[in-house]
């Protein structure tokens, strides 16, 4: 069983059952994420924040999954590009900006972690670290506990395609397969691990080709298409919730920005390639669909944009003014 395509896996159009408000909400959160992300770049370029690592361009696969999850019930063990994902699950722009500025009120870490290292128990977003792929066995453990305790919880772990080269990925999927755990591993394949292209990372064409090695479906789909992303996510969540065992998803996507604010991507890829992918921008495509469906017109688009920009402004201002942690806060918490 090689990798499945979206249509082979899904069978039906789950998105047809979404009411218009939900569809518009998906669009809005993607746009909010985009505006927030862009602002973070600006703040970094202005020298106001030390570091930014972007989720820009990967919004659709994240938001599609978030909208298929039961918020506060299902778990997300995220990675650093999940800015849209954590927003869609209930973190606010203020939350995120507070971390970017390293402020005391940062709910993820109280200023201890670098930006994009989220943690938010109300949304069951698990504290994330920098060493890649460590979340995969941990997510398997969360899922295992849910299963052993008889709880109806699905766990989603995300990571980049480059990170699948780590032993953690292999070991985590192995456990999930053996114990048929309620786990979805969502690989966001943006085709580079910093500068290293996919063909130097792995000898297979698709990450999803590896599902079979763990006795689970491997599904690849267009991660820049919000409805396809939602359909695959909804199908995966339903199956996992029914107890059919774990699933490996591969969202094909792209990172139009440099890897992080410390990177310069000109050394390893052409401008043409980047431009090409900008034409497949998930938000642009989503907007187009909404307009075609008659859900969005210029007036509404403007109102939504204004709401987003407002929130971004508010968050920036709030976070900039918020107090830093007291220095001695560095000493704790070590033990509970």
């Amino acid at each position, binding site marked *: 069983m090689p990798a499945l395509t979206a249509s082979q896996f899904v069978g039906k159009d789950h998105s047809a059952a979404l009411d218009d408000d939900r569809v518009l909400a998906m669009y809005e959160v993607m746009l909010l994420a985009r505006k927030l992300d862009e602002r973070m770049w600006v703040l970094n370029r202005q020298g106001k924040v030390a570091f930014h690592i972007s989720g820009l361009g990967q919004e659709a696969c994240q938001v599609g999954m978030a909208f298929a999850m039961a918020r506060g019930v299902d778990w997300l063990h995220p990675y650093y590009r999940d800015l849209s994902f954590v927003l869609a699950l209930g973190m606010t722009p203020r939350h995120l900006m507070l971390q970017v500025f390293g402020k005391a009120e940062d709910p993820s870490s109280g200023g201890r972690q670098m930006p994009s290292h989220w943690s938010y128990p109300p949304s069951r977003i698990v504290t994330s670290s920098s060493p890649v792929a*460590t979340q995969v*066995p941990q997510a398997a*453990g969360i899922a295992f*506990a849910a299963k052993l*305790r008889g709880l109806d919880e699905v766990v989603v772990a995300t990571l980049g395609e480059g990170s699948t080269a780590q032993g*953690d990925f292999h070991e*985590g999927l192995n*456990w999930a397969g053996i114990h048929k755990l309620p786990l979805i591993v969502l690989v966001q394949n943006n085709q580079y691990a910093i500068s290293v292209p996919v063909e130097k990372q792995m000898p297979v064409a698709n990450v999803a080709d590896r599902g079979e090695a763990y006795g689970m479906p491997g599904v690849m789909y267009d991660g820049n298409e919000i409805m396809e992303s939602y359909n695959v996510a909804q199908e995966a969540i339903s199956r996992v919730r029914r107890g059919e065992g774990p699933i490996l998803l591969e969202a094909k996507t792209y990172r139009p920005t440099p890897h992080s604010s410390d990177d310069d991507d000109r050394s390893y890829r052409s401008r043409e390639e980047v431009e090409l992918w900008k034409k497949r921008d998930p938000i642009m495509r989503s907007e187009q669909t909404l307009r075609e469906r008659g859900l969005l017109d210029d007036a509404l688009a403007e109102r939504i944009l204004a709401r987003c920009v407002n929130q971004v402004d508010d968050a920036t201002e709030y976070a900039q003014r918020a107090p830093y942690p007291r220095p001695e806060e560095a000493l704790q918490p070590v033990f509970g």
Partner: protein
Amino acid sequence: MPIKTNIEALNETLAAEMRRDARIIMMGEDVGQRGGVFRATKGLFEEFGPGRVIDSPLAELSIIGVGIGMALNGLRPICEIQFADFIHPAFNQIVNEAAKIRYRSNSAYHVPLVIRTPYGGGISGGLYHSQSIEAIFAHTPGLYVVAPSTPHDTKGLLRAALRAEDPVLFLEHKKCYRLIKGEVPAEDYDVPIGVAEVKRAGGDLTIIAWGLMLHESLRAAEALARDGISAEVLDLRTLAPLDREAILASVKKTGKVLIVHEDTLTGGLGAEVAAIIAQGAFEYLDGPITRLAGPDVPAVPFSHPLEDFFMPNAAKIVAAARKLAAY
């Protein structure tokens, strides 16, 4: 009071704790049907079944990683690493993850996880079945490290470990499993994490040790007593955080200290103990802070003459203590 071996105390306490708290899960290689390669988990699979006693795949990184996840979702896993020498593949999950989760999330998440592992030499285990691993993990803030040497402390520290809200590395000296016997009270008691114990009082010098070396030190103290040298033997029991007060109190009393461990000398935990004393009891010292430890070679060799040469023991402790006492 009943007399038990270390491993009996361990096994019985594991069972009793699992009866008390349904959140405790035992997992690791061969811990189920086989009852563990040292039989530490004997009978647990039969009593608690495959939902609480889990035979893992042969993969330490994920034994810990999965354990962390379980701990994040309401369970209290005990992860067995079959030999301490095989904990290294899990180093990242322990040091970068388990030990840092409370700090990095500002206590929003924490990891009540016990990692049990047999360690230590003297059993013809060669390079990869003899290692002492305490130094690298005692240098990991966010992780408790305990190393009980007696059946009494095994029970009390295991109970304390299973009540801790943060990860505990629970080190079991494999040579002591069946060699060491002692009284174990039937009633419930904890030995608190972080508290050392004077296992033998004395006035001329202090010997600081843990694990198998604690017992060798006690034997050495007997021999020294026959020479008229009165050695105090301090059992650290908890290796992180260290009981600074107990260490300093004993050295301030005796003025001389010999630190003994079987791990290799350079960068071993004895260095930290020495440093604490050199800073905190400087004015009380009547002689150089002395360490007796395994030599700086990559690991314990297999062949008897080599292994014996490597391992500190009572005779070597006596020799070092005599020299120090005569200073």
